[in-house]
């Protein structure tokens, strides 16, 4: 099966947050029903980070530069890595990799252990307190299976998001980066082609990765190694000790504690 990917073109994004809201709409995700309970971030960004009820967040970063203002928009969500750390540590099979590259989250299988939350280099999966499971972008595998575009892609009014075979997405992304460089955006680069084994959400970063909130050279955290190690290590340790003790048990067959010795000792006194 061909691998598919999303291309996010930050140079076409008008940061309308249509994707952010449509993601919630399609996936039945709530926002607070309280009055004035949402935090003000001091910018146009809705909230500081993704949360259990938010799988996609448009980021805003601005600074004055020589050529004018660099107002960098970023799309923060799961990148659907080829080498997904979250899948490797997920004990329940809730996280899995589909043939088309999607890192699927089946929340019905999620046991809420939060390993994925802890190991994702992008800190994407978030624990959803109300239902006790992890929450992250599924690349709308339900929709793509049914022949529709992911909800965020379809809803993008400015066509900054597109979805299709990963090779096409990479090619389109590279062309776009070159166009931007020609137009004077020297720092433009493509994110996701090789990171984490190659990601299935790629981004054209108009002002360079950092400005748009993309982590350069992401790596799985060491914690992930500990998790990978501890399961076999514990099993081996327990089995090893049990084996040793079995030998001890067998060797000690027929042993009777010499309780009489008590009296003997006494008599010695």
């Amino acid at each position, binding site marked *: 099966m061909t691998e598919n990917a999303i291309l996010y073109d930050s140079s076409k994004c008008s940061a309308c947050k249509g994707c952010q809201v449509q993601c919630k709409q399609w996936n039945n995700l709530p926002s607070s029903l309280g009055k004035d309970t949402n935090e003000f971030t001091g910018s146009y960004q809705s909230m500081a980070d993704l949360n259990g009820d938010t799988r996609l967040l448009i980021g805003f970063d601005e600074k004055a530069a020589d050529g004018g203002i660099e107002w960098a928009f970023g799309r923060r969500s799961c990148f659907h890595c080829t080498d997904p750390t979250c899948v490797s540590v997920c004990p329940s099979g809730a996280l899995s990799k589909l043939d088309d590259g999607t890192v699927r989250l089946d929340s019905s299988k999620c046991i809420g252990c939060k390993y994925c939350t802890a190991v994702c280099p992008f800190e994407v999966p978030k624990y959803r307190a109300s239902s006790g499971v992890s929450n992250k972008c599924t690349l709308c595998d339900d929709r793509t299976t*049914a022949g529709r575009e992911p909800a965020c892609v379809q809803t993008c009014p400015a066509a900054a998001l597109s979805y299709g075979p990963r090779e096409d997405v990479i090619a389109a992304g590279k062309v776009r980066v070159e166009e931007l460089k020609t137009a004077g955006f020297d720092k433009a680069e493509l994110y996701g082609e090789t990171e984490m084994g190659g990601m299935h959400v790629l981004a054209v970063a108009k002002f360079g990765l950092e400005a748009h909130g993309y982590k350069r050279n992401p790596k799985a955290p060491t914690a992930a190694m500990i998790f990978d190690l501890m399961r076999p290590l514990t099993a081996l340790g327990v089995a090893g000790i049990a084996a040793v003790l079995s030998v001890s048990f067998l060797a000690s067959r027929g042993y009777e504690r010499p309780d009489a010795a008590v009296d003997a000792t006494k008599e010695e006194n």
Partner: protein
Amino acid sequence: MGVTRRDFLRLSGAAFMTTAIYELTAQSSALAVEMDQEWKLVNVDETSTICCYCSGGCGTIVSARDGELVNIEGDVDHPINRGGLCSKGSSQFGVNSVYDDKTGDRIINPNRLQKPKVRRAGATDWEEISWEQAIDEIAARIKKTRDENYEAELDGVTVNRCEAIASFGAAALDNEEAYIVQKLGRGLGLTYIEHQARI
């Protein structure tokens, strides 16, 4: 790139039925997969509407099951927005229903007004009234104010106007309703008929 857009909307009445099977037959065969009963839009009625926010006129598909709202997304066949909707457009669902942030259940937006109310002179709160009483009382007040302040003639010119009542709205209404707002207003002799285009 990617998936071919489908003609998933066949209007053959104000509302029409799409089943999972219909959706599948409308797609290219390469995508024909067994439809999961978990599919969000299984057995929904789809109707088309136009977004209520800006004046772009974006096509929107509303899916409902058993009279209850299921999904609202852009109309991929619509030539203006081609399936797209911005944050406001994507939130049209929320005008009717929201998801409870504790239980996750879909509920009617708790802020929606559901009953006629009146606030009496000097009162500090609303009281609920029936529609019948509301319409009757409002009509009585319109009539009283109109009758007491009506000018039929001035300086030999028939003016037939009531300057004592103002009508505001409505750019939020449909054309036919807007037409009726001004027709009823002018039928009462009103001259202060205004709406959002003026501000």
